[in-house]
């Protein structure tokens, strides 16, 4: 693989001795956004995620059985009738998995949106306004950051009378914004020192306009990555809550499946089909989201990108890896690369 067209100029390190002057506003925002999708990791993650979204939408319709429907096929291993086997009540695990996707995605995205909105409001405000506002808001996010979130979520949801999906999403969203707020604050602080923001402020633009039109476009990647991270966390939290039986055991999500599997000794009965698919579904969703985030990370900081072609054949016949400190020498012949042109026939006399 050769280095893709776009990567050369991005590979230039942002700092380092050969840093290019950081000039004003990133002009090529549009083209860059398109480039993000060409990142292999991000593309893989997005494709995987869209499959999950698809099942979240159509899952309940295409499920072959009602997830609660009992039958006489108790604890059956996978078969043509039950692709992923059945539970102790003869329920179809595959249908439970399909139906459960919607709840998982719903909680993940709603919690992600709630946390992202909060983190943008708190983080950007703190970073942009500075001073006392910043101190207060930073302290608030730091408190939320060090209080262990999952136990807090467990305690809060256990006191809720009805643990419906949207309520759980809300609780998760309200307790997990702090990390993103912190990152956004730092990013805003560094952006605020750049020329184009100064320029906008100098021309007397209103604060909210500067934030929305000058800052936000440059925070997109950070916000997106924070959102994706929160979705991962929210999905894991929701599943955990269901698994330990805090939330209703009748709304189906993958945690509910694991809750019943664990409670009904699926392990002792060797009913692997009962707990493996749900766990894999979680892990693959998590992988998809992480891949998207790696894509974003590499997009924001090109240094992380795995360097296209890393192995090169050098002059002494060895194949070496490109690495800092020992630049590969592809040839050390002293012959010039440019052929000397013949001296042109015309010579201007009056040049000096």
């Amino acid at each position, binding site marked *: 693989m*050769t280095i893709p067209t776009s990567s050369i100029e991005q590979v230039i390190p942002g*700092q380092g001795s*050969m840093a290019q002057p950081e000039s004003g506003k990133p002009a090529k925002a549009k083209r860059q956004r398109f480039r993000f999708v060409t990142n292999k990791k991000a593309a893989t993650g997005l494709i995987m995620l869209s499959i999950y979204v698809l099942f979240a939408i159509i899952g309940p319709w295409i499920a072959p059985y009602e997830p609660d429907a009992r039958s006489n096929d108790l604890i059956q291993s996978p078969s043509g009738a039950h692709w992923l086997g059945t539970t102790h009540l003869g329920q179809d695990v595959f249908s439970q998995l399909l139906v459960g996707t919607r709840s998982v995605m719903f909680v993940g995205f709603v919690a992600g949106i709630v946390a992202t909105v909060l983190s943008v409001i708190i983080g950007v405000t703190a970073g942009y306004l500075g001073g006392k506002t910043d101190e207060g808001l930073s302290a608030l996010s730091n408190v939320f950051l060090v209080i262990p979130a999952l136990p807090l979520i467990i305690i809060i949801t256990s006191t809720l009378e009805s643990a419906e999906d949207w309520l759980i999403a809300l609780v998760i969203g309200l307790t997990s914004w702090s990390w993103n707020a912190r990152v956004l604050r730092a990013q805003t602080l560094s952006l605020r020192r750049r020329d184009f923001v100064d320029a906008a402020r100098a021309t007397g633009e209103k604060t909210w306009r500067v934030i929305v039109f000058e800052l936000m476009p440059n925070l997109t990647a950070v916000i997106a990555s924070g959102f994706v991270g929160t979705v991962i966390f929210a999905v894991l939290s929701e599943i955990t809550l269901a698994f330990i039986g805090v939330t209703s055991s009748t709304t189906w999500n993958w945690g509910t499946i694991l809750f019943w599997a664990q409670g009904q000794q699926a392990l002792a009965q060797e009913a692997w089909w009962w707990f493996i698919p749900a766990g894999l579904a979680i892990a693959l969703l998590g992988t998809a989201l992480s891949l998207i985030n790696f894509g974003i990370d590499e997009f924001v900081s090109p240094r992380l990108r795995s360097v296209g072609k890393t192995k090169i054949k050098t002059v002494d016949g060895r194949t070496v890896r490109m690495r800092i400190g*020992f630049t590969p020498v592809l040839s050390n012949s002293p012959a010039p690369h440019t052929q000397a*042109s013949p001296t*042109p026939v015309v010579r*201007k006399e009056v040049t000096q």
Partner: protein
Amino acid sequence: MSKPVLEIRNLNVEYGLGDQAVRAVRDVNLTLHRGEVLGLAGESGSGKSTLAYGMTRLLPPPGVITGGQVLYHPEQGEAYDVLGLSDRDLRAFRWAETAIVFQGAMNSLNPVHKISTQLTDVLRAHRPEMSEAACNDRAREMLKLVGIAADRMDAYPHQLSGGMRQRVMIGMALILQPQVVIMDEPTTALDVVMQRQILSQLIELRERLGFSVVFITHDLSLLVEFSNRIAIMYGGRIVEEAPAAAIYRDSLHPYSKGLLGSFPALRGPRRELTGIPGSPPDLKGMPSGCSFHPRCPKAFDPCSGNIPVLGRPDTPDGPTRSVACWLHPTEQPVG
């Protein structure tokens, strides 16, 4: 002219591989003589740093050296090609023979180690036979040499001012008494007074210790004052090379003239600030022929079609200088 210490022959450096490669240094020929200060000037982006790091194989990926030789003449013994050294020999060569003071001197020091550690680890790597006490003495001596109190040995980089850090780097560069010291814009981040102070100190040290200096800057006026000879780079090539006074008095290449016009000289008669219209060439899509021709006020017929090669001009002082411009047909190419 004294004997050469470093000879660069047709050095070519590219960033990236294959079609997408950016050719940042093209067929550069340059000779550094023993004990001289060779200035290297050019607009930013002209490939000065790439040349400096390329000759010691310190380019960051995706930089690769695609051709050329860097001949080093040790004080005794045969000359050898630095680019042909094994990793192990190259490690031994580095700093002991050529030391570098980097462009980003502010970040050149490891923030988590004391100055003393960073000075002495060079000694420990290159002079394993030296005792701990001897290493420390030597480090202290170097600090004194560059005008830093010995009690700053135990300071961390963040406790030093920018100027002091730069002096520490210079001291560190001299600690193994190398033959060649390469300085890449060593003073750009400092204020003018500090710049001159450090530079005069460096020149004085050079007279005392006898090393050669490659001094890189985009500030030609500094070079005119501090260096013996000056090479001008444009678009990855050396376009003119001559004694400092000759460059200042009658530079032959229109680009050199433009550069001189861009900076007010600190001494001597005032000159008009003319600057150079246009912007540096895009290395991916170099103009044909002389890469300066779109900006050159004197461009004529052959300029856009043929690349002028660096050679001796047919001027009276021709043998001491070289230039790559069709205005000055060259006798024989240099290199």
